């Protein structure tokens, strides 16, 4: 068990390095240099050069990479070039918000997704199942950004059930209830499509499991679906659910950027977007690293969990 974890870690860490290199290279490819761009009209060439030295822009690319990496690991994440504030401050404030949103989306994705999946899997072949699967298939293809806007229009503007944007009511006292009220629509919009994907996969897994001799025997012996569900399906389902969720977190993170823009959720996605447009590469580098690290960690945890739950990978995995 420990061996598995260590093995996975050993595989992940070089991945992280490579990701960091990729990120750094992309940043370095950007034409021009934000400091010079921003201050060109205001200061003399000497003064600009001085500031560039402060930011370490005068050294070779290789040196800059290693300096950056060293700083990154020791917690010095540099100064944002467009906002002139520490990157840690810029990202830190927003990172928590993105995490909140993503966690909420995962919950909203998992719970209904699994329930619907099991429901359809058990009633496989009936009209109910087919109808739900049709809805799932259509929903799969709906662009999340349109859906989010539609939800805002329908639930916030027309029905007034939810707030239009932001994380908290500015006049309120930032209570948990207020947060949840603001959180629901963005999280739901993010999660909906992944939830449908999860439902479909769970359904397929349920069908396959129900088809195994093992379960067939039990059914022949007269066990009801309910009992089978709780005793055996659950255990067998856990591994693929973990696997799919791990994958979905990737989609969710990508989706989060759209959602943040639409709902004006003050998260990391918006920051990165502005940073990219402004060639603010300290922010981009650190931000992307942060997300990639999270992504890899989540995948790692998911892989480890899967190994633990189903060491033979025998079970009913993704098609």
């Amino acid at each position, binding site marked *: 068990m420990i061996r598995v974890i260590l093995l996975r870690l050993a595989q992940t860490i*070089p*991945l992280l390095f*490579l*990701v960091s290199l*990729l*990120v750094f290279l*992309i*940043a370095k*490819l*950007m*034409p021009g240099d934000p400091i010079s761009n921003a201050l060109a009209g205001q200061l003399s060439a000497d003064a600009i050069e001085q500031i560039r030295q402060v930011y370490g822009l005068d050294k070779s690319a290789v040196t800059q990479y290693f300096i950056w990496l060293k700083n990154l690991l020791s917690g010095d994440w540099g100064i944002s070039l467009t906002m002139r504030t520490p990157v840690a401050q810029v990202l830190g404030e927003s990172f928590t918000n993105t995490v909140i949103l993503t966690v909420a989306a995962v919950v909203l994705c998992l719970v209904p997704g699994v329930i619907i999946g099991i429901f359809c899997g058990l009633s496989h072949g009936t009209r109910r199942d087919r109808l739900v699967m049709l809805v799932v*298939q*259509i929903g*799969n*293809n*709906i*662009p*999340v*950004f*349109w859906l989010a*806007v*539609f939800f*805002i*229009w329908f639930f916030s*503007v027309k029905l007034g059930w939810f707030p239009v944007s932001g994380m908290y009511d500015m006049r309120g006292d930032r209570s948990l209830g207020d947060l949840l009220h603001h959180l629901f629509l963005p999280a739901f919009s993010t999660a909906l499509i992944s939830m449908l994907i999860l439902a479909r996969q769970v359904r397929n897994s349920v069908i396959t499991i129900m088809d195994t001799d093992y379960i067939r025997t039990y059914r022949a012996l007269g066990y009801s679906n309910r009992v089978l569900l709780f005793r055996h399906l659950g255990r067998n389902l856990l591994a693929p659910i973990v696997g799919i969720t791990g994958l979905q977190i*990737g989609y969710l*993170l*990508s989706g989060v*950027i*759209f959602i943040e*823009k*639409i709902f004006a959720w003050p998260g990391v996605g918006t920051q*990165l*977007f502005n940073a*990219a*447009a402004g*060639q603010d590469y300290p922010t*981009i580098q650190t931000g*992307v690293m942060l*997300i*990639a690290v999270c*992504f*890899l960690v989540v*995948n790692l945890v998911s892989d480890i969990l899967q190994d633990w739950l189903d060491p033979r990978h025998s079970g009913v995995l993704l*098609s």
Partner: protein
Amino acid sequence: MRLLTFLCRLVRHKLALAGLLILLTAVGLSLLAPIIAPYDPLQSFDGLRLAPPGTPGHLLGLDNQGRDMLSRIIWGGRSILIASILPVIFAALLSLALGLLAGFRASAFSELIMRTMDILFAFPMVLLAIGLSAVLGSGYSTVIITLICSVVPYLTRVVYRDTRSEIAKDYVEALRAQGASNGDILFREILPNVATPLLVYTTSLLGGMVVFLAGLSFLGLGIQPPEADWGRMVGEGAQMMILGAPHIATAPAVAIVLLSLSFNWLGDGLRDLLDPNR
């Protein structure tokens, strides 16, 4: 002979047929866009800004700049088809090559390829697009590169896995015993067996890629105004939805859904027909 049977079976599979028909319609409309589209997609009609669907002469209404929605959807379909189909085909071919090479024989080279795929897999693609847009600017190049980078890891893994399992099969051993060269085995026997599932996956994947592409355009990373582009149109229409003109965002969204569904149905049909065992 096989092709004919295949086509017959395809026609009988209803959803796949529907998908194929939608797709053919979309392609047809796109090719004939200059003739079929009622108006110039860039032309603005005085006083008809934001007019709803059903306005005389404008079936789907007009947008924020007073341009005809139907024409823009037809022309937008053209750009989304080109921007999705061609890069994905290229990516599929690339994945085929990489997957075959990596799966054929376990070597340092194949390890390298698969690890690289893992990295790309680990990367939220939207971020890649955002980063690329800072370097290359927004436009076709950013979007196409991102698309290729999103598709290749997934398809390479599929090809790799299939190659590995094919290699393990008895007939390959038999061929080797008979003295067949590696090249022969790879290209004559394995490739056809691997290409079929690849085709199925690619077709289904195209659906997701159409939506992804639209998403990138929505964020402003795709082609720049005033060209018609479905994703961008949804983005521009998003504001107008709240201000009372939902058709501007919804018409292109419906088009995106239909196109994506058609790819999915076609892919499902292909899967059922070509690979009923799976």
